[in-house]
């Protein structure tokens, strides 16, 4: 349990998707103009990460990893499908996103209107595929992988919402013209990343 809590806190603050790895920057910059849209996409990212990371973990452990197919028959112990892991991961993410889009559209039109435009964006959000690609490099079990997925999502949510809040306030400041928009946003993200660096080495005391 402590282990899970540690992974959760670590993936929110220390290994923050945005400030430590810069994953999902494109949509991060695109939707952080308004606080409301940022909350919408942030929530969608948490949800998609919480589901696709365990799915990808299952696919990786029981399908792709070297010797993963032994549960089918012991003869397949030497099979290593590592080569096609990209295709498997992105197929799972894209198919899942398409699936929720259809389910949400059918059962909750109001939620669909709120999230609608963001869902297709998520399929190509680097943080979703990035989280999947981190799995082979870290020895997580299923519970840990799920926690890591949710934590990463919460970290992304936190980052995008706080940047949106800062950008909304910035409407009142007098920024040099060519620096307006993207330029100043990058400098702010840099400063926020410096702030988040103070979490490095942070560990729960148990």
């Amino acid at each position: 349990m402590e282990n899970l809590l540690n992974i959760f806190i670590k993936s929110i603050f220390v290994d923050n998707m945005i400030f430590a790895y810069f994953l999902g920057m494109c949509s991060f910059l695109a939707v952080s103009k308004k606080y409301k849209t940022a909350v919408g996409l942030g929530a969608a990212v948490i949800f998609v990460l919480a589901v696709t990371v365990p799915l990808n973990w299952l696919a990786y452990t029981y399908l792709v990893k070297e010797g993963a197919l032994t549960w089918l028959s012991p003869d397949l112990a030497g099979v290593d499908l590592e080569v096609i892991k990209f295709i498997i991961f992105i197929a799972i993410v894209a198919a899942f996103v398409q699936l929720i889009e259809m389910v949400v559209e059918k059962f909750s039109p109001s939620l669909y209107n709120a999230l609608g435009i963001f869902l297709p964006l998520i399929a190509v959000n680097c943080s979703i595929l990035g989280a999947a690609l981190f799995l082979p490099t870290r020895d997580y079990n299923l519970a840990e992988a799920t926690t890591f997925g949710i934590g990463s999502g919460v970290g992304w949510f936190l980052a995008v919402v706080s940047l949106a809040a800062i950008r909304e306030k910035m409407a009142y400041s007098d920024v040099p013209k060519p620096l307006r928009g993207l330029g100043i946003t990058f400098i702010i993200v840099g400063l926020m990343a410096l702030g988040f660096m103070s979490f490095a080495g942070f560990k729960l005391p148990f």
Partner: protein
Amino acid sequence: MSTEVIEKTVKEKEALLSKKRKALVTNPLDSDNPVTIQILGICSALAVTIAMKGTLIMAFGLLFVVVMSNIVISAMRNTIPNRIRIIVQLVVVATLVAALDQVLRAYVYEQSKSLSVFVGLIITNCIVMGRLEAYAMGNRPWDSALDGLGNSLGYAWIIIVIAFIRELFGAGKIFGFQVLSKDWYVANGFFATPAAACIILGLIIWGLRARNGYSED
């Protein structure tokens, strides 16, 4: 016979490297740069730029994937059903990236280890998908190839400039060679952090936009 005639008329209509086609390559370098103007492909621009060597490999990798996927999708553009086009595009791109990853592992293993997940993340690099959606889905293969070339070069020079600054000040090195002597230069750890990449990119954008007279709002 008939195909020859068609090819001839096409050629007469437009030279292989006409003015319009040159603009396809040169515009993304400056006034329509994918990173600074279109805001695409930022993730890897920031994450891989800690040293020149890895950055060059990343730039070539992206060039290969963008040009090849533009050609393939452009050649198939009339047969792809509109509803599932994103998945078709992703599969093509993912296949190219898997091939690239194998080549990198075979020839530059150390570098491919240090680039870790970022080679795989070329799949979701917005430049790739952005060019496929915006250009290759509606244009001929040769034009699409040029468009991909221009955009990936526009991306390449930005990340190479960032990597140059970061490696020079962050470690006093260029391509791993000590340029600023350790006797009098103390490596500035700030430039090795991701935050520095953000701030440098912000300043580059400022400079380029001031030059082009481009501004948001």
